[in-house]
């Protein structure tokens, strides 16, 4: 019998050895994936026992998110508090037990809980846990400028809209505002979440305050899209800035007249103009004709080079960032099939083209930076609990959108818009400002989305951005959005004379 006993002994020991192998899998290989699961209640609680890192604004002093300690059931938990009560609320997001996480709090959770794989952090965490002290997360220093962010939120207060300002050379995001905003401290207070959802909204039927309009808000770009069309025209080599067109005051498509937009300045019909003048005065008829001549495929391809149809890689959860592009309202998806697109209306930013303010800010940044779009970064650096820098974010190229020549030509056209076209409200004495207005039609009669995209100083740009204000009754981009852009540029440019 001994031979059989030896054999079943081996089987028994192999079964137990398999348990060790499986435990190894679940404890070394699987934890990363499991920790990311939304229903991982253990992680959700365990993470509140970590002294979560703070989130600072760009000055390194203003605290956007920090912790307070609370003992319950014999354990110490670290809960979040937001001292600025909602400054950049959708960007910072929240971290709560009941509602999980949003914004940077969600996307950068691993840094904030010291779960990132940097050698220094791992050693720090290991020594903390061996010493039996609380594990401390890493801090984040954002690129957000407190002052400019406050100006943007004040200017947008009472409206629904968004402002994005970034450095076109580095991609550092100085301002990302979305209104209405909310106080993240209220998320977990009794009825707080419900009250945020139900809070009075300046624009009925529009999304709640939790929604980051800068990255998720989808609006028709209107005439701001003419930058893409103009870039397509120049890149096609068929047109130059000097190419001439005749503006009859309307454009004929499918046998019907498409009237010029309301916000072009000047006469109903300009007659003979070149591309620069058509851009400066935002003449729809010319762009409509351009669209027909170029065809929708060329325009869509150019748009893709500027980042349309992909989510800009920014430090926010992918679910809180939307791509831009032609949108099928029935299927609720983006599409890029050129043969079912009205080219004339596409060329001046209507059709079913929907964009996020972030995407339009990146278009402005791309023109400003000689045709190259840098990856937008909300985070400047990650620092350890002790203060040393763990990770420094370096500028990175996101898209090579267009050539330097094309970018330079459009730069001049955009300067013209501010000097003598539709965007004069953005003029700043002593600073060359470039911009493009947009007044996008919506489904409601006479209700527009007011746009302004801009950068400055035009010959050496350090700020670029986009402002979008939705639900404006007879409100035009040049009148509503351009003044906000002016305020932000004044706040961010040292050479601008302060008001």
């Amino acid at each position, binding site marked *: 019998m001994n031979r059989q006993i*030896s054999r079943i002994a081996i*089987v028994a020991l192999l079964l137990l050895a398999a*348990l060790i192998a499986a*435990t190894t899998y679940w404890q070394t290989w699987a934890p990363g994936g*499991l920790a990311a699961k939304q229903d991982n209640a*253990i992680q959700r*609680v365990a993470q509140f026992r970590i002294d979560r890192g703070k989130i600072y604004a760009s000055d390194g002093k203003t605290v956007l998110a920090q912790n307070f300690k609370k003992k319950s059931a014999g354990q110490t938990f670290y809960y979040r508090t937001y001292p600025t009560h909602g400054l950049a609320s959708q960007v910072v997001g929240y971290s709560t037990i009941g509602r999980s996480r949003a914004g940077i709090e969600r996307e950068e959770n691993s840094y904030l809980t010291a779960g990132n794989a940097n050698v220094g952090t791992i050693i720090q965490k290991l020594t903390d*846990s061996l010493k039996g002290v609380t594990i401390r997360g890493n801090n984040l220093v954002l690129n957000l400028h407190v002052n400019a962010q406050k100006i943007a939120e004040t200017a947008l207060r009472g409206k629904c809209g968004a402002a994005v300002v970034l450095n076109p050379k580095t991609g550092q995001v100085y301002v990302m505002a979305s209104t209405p905003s909310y106080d993240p401290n209220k998320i977990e207070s009794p009825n707080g979440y419900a009250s945020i959802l139900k809070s009075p909204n300046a624009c009925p039927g529009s999304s709640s305050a939790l929604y980051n309009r800068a990255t998720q808000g989808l609006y028709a770009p209107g005439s701001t899209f003419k930058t893409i069309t103009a870039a397509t025209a120049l890149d096609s080599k068929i047109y130059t800035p000097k190419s001439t067109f005749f503006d009859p005051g309307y454009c004929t498509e499918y046998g019907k007249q498409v009237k010029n937009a309301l916000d072009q300045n000047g006469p109903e019909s300009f007659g003979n103009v070149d591309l620069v003048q058509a851009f400066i005065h935002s003449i729809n008829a010319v762009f409509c004709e351009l669209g027909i001549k170029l065809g929708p495929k060329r325009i869509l391809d150019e748009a893709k080079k500027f980042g349309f149809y992909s989510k800009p890689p920014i430090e926010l959860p992918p679910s809180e960032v939307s791509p831009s592009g032609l949108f099928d309202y029935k299927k609720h998806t983006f599409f890029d099939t050129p043969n079912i697109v009205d080219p004339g209306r596409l060329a001046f930013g209507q059709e079913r083209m929907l964009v996020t303010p972030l995407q339009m800010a990146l278009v402005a940044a791309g023109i400003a930076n000689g045709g190259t779009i840098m990856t937008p970064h909300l985070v400047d650096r990650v620092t350890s609990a002790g203060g040393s820098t763990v990770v420094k974010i370096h500028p990175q190229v996101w898209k090579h959108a267009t050539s330097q020549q094309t970018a330079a030509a459009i730069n001049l056209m955009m300067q013209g818009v501010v000097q003598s076209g539709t965007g004069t409200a953005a003029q700043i004495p002593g600073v060359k400002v470039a911009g493009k207005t947009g007044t996008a039609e919506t489904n409601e009669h006479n209700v527009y989305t007011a746009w302004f995209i801009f950068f400055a100083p035009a010959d050496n740009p350090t700020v670029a951005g986009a402002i979008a204000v939705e639900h404006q009754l007879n409100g035009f981009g040049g009148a509503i959005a351009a003044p906000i852009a002016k305020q932000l540029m004044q706040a961010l440019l040292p050479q601008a004379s302060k008001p």
Partner: protein
Amino acid sequence: MGARALNLSYRNRELFYLAVVGVLTGLGFASVYIARQSEVSWGSLSYALFFFALYLIAHLVTRWTVPNADPYLLPMAGLLTAVGVTEIYRLGNADAFRQGLWIVIGVGLFALALWGLRRDYRVLEQYKYLFGIGAIALLFLPRFPGLGTSVNGARLWVHVGSFRFQPGEFSKIFLIVFLAAYLREKREALARARLKDVGPLLVIFGGCMLVLVSSNDLGSGLLYFGIFLAMLYVATARLSFVFAGIALFLAGGFVAYEKIAHVHERVSIWLTPWTTNKVYCPSTGGLALRQDCESYQLVKSLYSIANGGFGGTGLGKGTFTTTDGHPLIPYVNSDFIYSALAQELGLVGAAALLLVFMLFVARGMKIALQADDGFSKLLAAGLTFGFALQTFIIVGGVLRIIPLTGITLPFVSYGGSSVVANFVLLAGLLLVSNRANTHQ
């Protein structure tokens, strides 16, 4: 280690290792105390002292009754119960106290078994049918109205006053005694596959299986089947029986999967614990993600294990409750004690724990090899294989190697009948070992 180098006798070696276990237990309780300072008093260390005293008594009994028995099994059992009780204590003081009481009863029964059978345990062989019928009767006990209680949809418990126990744990040992005796007697005849000798075997084994399957106790069903096949193989050396048995089991399992909702549920939890779309949820009758419904326990237990990582959170520092103290994993101190231990001790501790189980099994099998009569060999091999398979079924279920079925982790899980039955199992192994070593 040290004890062997010092050329100590078996019993002195046992004492030495028990002392080591005593120190470990003290350290374990101390670390739980330190981690949860606000709640635990210094009195908790009396647990460790009490524990050591208890095992000292068990040791004195072995000195007197089985002087030549294996010296490692008792300290290992001591270590496993200590680990179990420490973790149970950390999860809730009241249960730890009750578990301590059960360990006292277990040690009592252990002493009683050693004392009663110290001259020759082989008298048991004469009562084989009593054991066989006893095995079925014990399994049947919870079915009697007024006696049985249903817990989580399985009627496995017997209530006598405020006392609750699971007779199935003892039935397993009875069945092993019956199989050892019966197979020893009929092994040649069985190897030739003579049908008339198979009769009683099939009646008793089949009876057990029928009761188990009809009471939804799938884990025990699998355990009994495995023990049966292993012992049949040891007795007859016919691998074909094993393969036929496995084929039969797979076929039966497939039919059960198709026809029995309870089995189907267990298998689908095992195969796809996480769903991206909502599926039917039997407990609410509505639709839900499976991880929020049927596989809730398994998934939470996996999160617990994963949270331990390589080094663990440390004893007393794991996460088992929400911030307001509600438990996150149901049955964490019985069916899921392994996921609690794996979280707090990490891979290092969990692997060490499993190595103790492996050592226990290796010593048990060594006893089976050393025994010089068929009944003793079969008894020791059956008890040891049952011990190993039970560990595999529960821990393998928790680790998603096999579908999860609720049975206890020997010596570690919270559960009176399990602890007591395992002490009886330990007594059986020591008796066989003592006899084998005395005759050499």
